[in-house]
């Protein structure tokens, strides 16, 4: 190596390069391991894996595709946030403006179709994990984390559904959130609500104080709901999902690598 490519070699020998990459060239097994271990993004991944484990026909690449789509949704979502205002006066016209007046107006469509695709890939990922039996010990905890991530994906879809603020959005959320009426103990039409009211001696769980009210910020879908769903959609759920995804990827590594028999 020495003597060849003097310029590249001098970069590699520079203090700046060495301060970022604290390992040598990947020309021996130790350095190959270090490259993965010492990178904050890569260290979540297995250092090495079985060739059979990464066969496309085996994994369908669905977990990776889901993560890729999450990144697409994050990037396009942040771009949309530069134009979208979550108020009853502006929300719908901002959505129209995003299509008609803003350069690369297709960004909103990418966000929408990416969301649909992510729901599909996350289901297929779960289906694959089930078919390959990859939920079995010692991976049962990661299956649980995955189920929560699936629910969060659906909630991201649901909260994003309201943001265009058209008739479809308002009525879809009206219909969808009616399920929260039947939350056990916490919904005013759910099982156990009357029991709680009886035990407390006053109407604690009503249409104005139950789970659905907390979700909608009112008894019906209104402007307060739009703001609440916006914050849930853009900050709260993505944050929780990111933390859980880090755990999910970490546990893939710790529980024996990508699927495959142990």
């Amino acid at each position, binding site marked *: 190596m020495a003597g060849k490519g003097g310029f590249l070699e001098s970069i590699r020998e520079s203090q700046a390069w060495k301060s970022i990459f604290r390992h040598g060239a990947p020309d021996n097994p130790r350095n190959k391991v270090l490259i993965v271990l010492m990178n904050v993004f890569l260290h979540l991944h297995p250092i090495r894996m079985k060739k059979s484990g990464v066969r496309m026909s085996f994994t369908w690449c669905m977990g990776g595709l889901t993560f890729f789509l999450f990144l697409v949704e994050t990037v396009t979502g942040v771009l949309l946030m530069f134009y979208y205002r979550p108020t009853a006066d502006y929300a719908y016209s901002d959505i129209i403006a995003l299509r008609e007046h803003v350069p690369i107006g297709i960004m909103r469509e990418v966000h929408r179709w990416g969301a649909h695709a992510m729901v599909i890939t996350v289901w297929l990922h779960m289906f694959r994990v089930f078919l390959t039996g990859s939920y079995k010990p010692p991976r049962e905890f990661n299956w649980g984390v995955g189920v929560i991530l699936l629910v969060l994906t659906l909630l991201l879809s649901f909260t994003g559904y309201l943001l265009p603020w058209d008739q479809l959005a308002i*009525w879809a959320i*009206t*219909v969808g959130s*009616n399920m929260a009426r039947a939350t056990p103990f916490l919904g005013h039409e759910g099982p156990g609500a009357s029991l709680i009211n009886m035990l407390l001696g006053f109407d604690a769980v*009503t249409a*104005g*104080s139950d789970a659905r*009210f*907390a979700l909608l*910020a*009112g*008894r*019906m879908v*209104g402007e*307060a709901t739009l703001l609440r769903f916006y914050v849930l959609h853009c900050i709260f759920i993505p944050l929780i999902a990111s933390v859980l995804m880090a755990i999910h990827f970490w546990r893939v590594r710790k529980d024996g690598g990508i699927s495959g028999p142990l």
Partner: protein
Amino acid sequence: MPTPSYPEAPEGISRRTFISWVTVGWVAFSAALGAGLTAVGRLFFPNVTFEPPQQFKAGFPTEYVVNKVDERFKKKYGVWIVRNEKGIYVLSTVCTHLGCTPNWLDAEAKFKCPCHGSGYYVTGINFEGPAPRPLERFKIALSDDGQLYIDKNVKFQYEKGQWKDAGSFLETAAS
């Protein structure tokens, strides 16, 4: 032979005192955390909502025409006020299927939901589409000044036999 020396515990803190203080600390921390989380949970239930009130006055009985579905309060309060020969009742505009708002079709004398096609008679009884039960009725009474007084906090469900209860129907003198 020198005896091994151990560092002495600081003056005034015994093992027992230390554990007591740790316990006190953890209890205080847990209580503060619990109080903080409760306060944050309370944040999601504002003291004031900018929705129409659940109780309201709806004008005088004479303003309502016999055998006609009155839609003047449909948009604001979500109710139809219906008067027949015997009296007045208040129907909820929430479809019992999934919660959309049906339309009153005068020519066909029925409530028809645009979402999935549920149909209700003028009484509120369901007769077509996926609706599993009749529309709900709200409490109606006369206030001191003679106006109708409607309370949406109290509802009457037909399938529970509540349409016979006092307050579900306001009898009016023939006019």
